[in-house]
């Protein structure tokens, strides 16, 4: 039985197919989010199936999540990314009690129960403060590929102080820092610290370890270290962090098809 999860995020759309009985991942795929958001979700669904020799009829159930989840017509139902990330993280790192997820335009903090269900959650404000979009702006302004940010930041001995977490104001600050001769590596290290600090404000005074870090920004080398320093706990990056939401959606699809007696976790609203 094949189940599919589609995470239609604000910056990227991720799809993952799961062989439900064994909960083994058959394949996963990512593409940039587009203007025609409905087409993007449905196209990646078709491409994922084609890449693995599957037809739509082979898929028992599809769950869509993410910002544009309601636009994925291939989906049987939708579940929010809060529940999907919790489910995906619990599958990968069952011991995690706190999840920090930083995506393209959102950052979230989830507190999990022992069974992986969500106890409570917090999300960032409506601006792009402390999200992947913020990092993209920095990479663009410094003319550094996104993938190289971590390596550069690791060479910094004097991270710059970034006062504003507003992506627009911070851009002005970065221009000022460059004009004053601050090296890009120090600016990037400062930005990493600022993003991590922002995530800690979501956590509040109490943060229960172990802490899992997921979402697209978790792929940026060095962000886990910055986050660990900011929150004062070790941070475990979830394997394939960009696909955690899609994985959770696929797992929920499987759970919705055949809720196992011993599986008392959430089903995402069923």
């Amino acid at each position, binding site marked *: 039985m094949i189940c599919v999860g589609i995470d239609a995020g604000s910056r990227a759309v991720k799809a993952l197919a799961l062989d439900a009985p064994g909960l083994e991942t058959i394949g996963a795929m990512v593409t940039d989010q587009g203007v025609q958001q409905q087409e993007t979700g449905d196209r990646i669904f078709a491409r994922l199936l084609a890449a693995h020799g599957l037809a739509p009829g082979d898929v028992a159930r599809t769950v869509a999540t993410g910002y544009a989840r*309601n636009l994925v017509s291939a989906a049987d139902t939708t579940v*929010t*990314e*809060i529940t999907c990330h919790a489910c995906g993280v619990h599958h990968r790192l069952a011991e995690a009690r706190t999840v920090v997820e930083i995506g393209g335009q959102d950052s979230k903090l989830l507190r999990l129960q022992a069974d992986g*269900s969500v106890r409570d*959650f917090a999300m960032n*404000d409506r601006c792009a403060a402390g999200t992947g979009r913020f990092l993209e702006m920095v990479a663009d302004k410094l003319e550094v590929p996104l993938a190289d940010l971590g390596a550069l930041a690791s060479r910094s001995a004097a991270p710059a102080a970034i006062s504003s977490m507003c992506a627009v104001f911070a851009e002005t600050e970065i221009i000022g820092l460059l004009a004053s001769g601050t090296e890009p590596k120090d600016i990037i290290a400062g930005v990493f610290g600022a993003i991590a600090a922002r995530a800690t404000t979501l956590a509040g*005074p109490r943060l229960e370890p172990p802490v899992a870090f997921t979402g697209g920004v978790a792929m940026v080398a060095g962000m886990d270290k910055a986050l660990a320093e900011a929150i004062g706990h070790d941070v475990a990056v979830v394997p394939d962090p960009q696909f955690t939401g899609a994985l959770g959606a696929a797992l929920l699809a499987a759970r919705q098809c055949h809720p196992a007696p011993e599986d008392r976790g959430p089903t995402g609203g069923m």
Partner: protein
Amino acid sequence: MTDAPEQITLAEWDGRYARLRSAGLAEPAYGGPLGRHLAGGDTRLDKLLYDNSAAALRLWNFLLSEADRLFAAGQAGKTIVAAMKDLGTVPVMACALPDVVAFYPDGAWWIPCIMEHGAGLLARADALGIDESFCPVRAMLGAFASGAHWPEPDVLICSVGAVCDDFSAIAQRLDGLGHPVFWWEMPARRRPDPGEPAVRLPTGFTAPQSQVDVVRGELQRVRGALETAADKPLDDAALARGVREANAIRRVLAELRRLVFTAARCPLGALEMMIAEMLAIHFCSDRDEAHRVLGDLLAEVRRRVDAGRGILPADAVRVFWVNPVADLRAMNLLERCGGRLCGTELLFSHALDEIPTDVGPAEALARTALGDPMVGPAADRAERVCRDIRRFAAEAVVVSRIPGASHCALEGKVMHDMIAEKVHLPVVQIEVPPLSDPIAAKLRTRLEALVEVARGQRR
């Protein structure tokens, strides 16, 4: 009517209105089809969902005809009192006088939503130096400048001190623009020192008697201002009558809240409940009619509860809502995400409590006014919220922020953390601007996630 309770669109209301009329619906003078307000520029109405009862129709028509009522009162030579910021005290006093009509210019904060910026009030406020770093209540300034939403009041009475900083600044700007304001001061409520004479306020908080004395003195000055404006004395007997009339309305609202928030199936939508609660503070410029409108609504709700009928699925998640929303559509959104309203704290819970009648009316009003949740520590307010969350058995909590509102920035985190710690329920913070359409997907995610988490915790 025998039709099943449900939520319908404005267009659907047109057809329903025709059917109600043919079935003999009797309406007050301000009645009529809801769609006429759309033609008058209230374009947001086309995007809302409404309760389909005749009682709800009357509620909406009453709300949306307030400007007509105010202009008519002005033309009839009645004294127009603009009460500002105190939320629930000055109108009780003003309405105790004959031929006096009180209203809250504060209510203009919904005009940018209802008219989808069509009236240009926020742009006018911008031009007058009060920009988006302030709460959307700055629309009031634009409304005064336009002169289109109410007649020039005979007196403007505004509380300052431990009340909303934004409002005080906006009202001062208004005063500087040639609308003289009568100011009265509200002290920051504190807990009594050991051994200090104290009084328990109707809201449940305890305050030093000396602070109540200060407020009573300030309200005595307000009484003088009202007497001057109306050119009539306002004696204790009249004030006591005003208190009794206000309490009658508060009792109807208390019963409405109890029924709606505790019924097995939700008998009335969040939007209508929010508007009904607002009537407790402003009476929509006609106290006696406000009483009748709420009485109608209560009767409808009672019928539905007795019949076990509701407008939402029986398994809707019970959500407690903190702070009013600038965009009315957010209340519909809660229900579309699987929630139902089961408790509110919309910044004026002191106006929902009955005013004491075992003391003189001036003392009673002072105690009630000092119980304003906004003039004390955020922790006090959170305590009251937690008490009501337990009372109404809510399963989740929304702390809604108002963009630009300084009290939200100060209180939001405190409220969130205290509620989460004391009642162990999922709590989400959202921010709702006057038009939330561009961030509707984000709001929806937060509310849906809250509902999912609460459902997960039922297991």
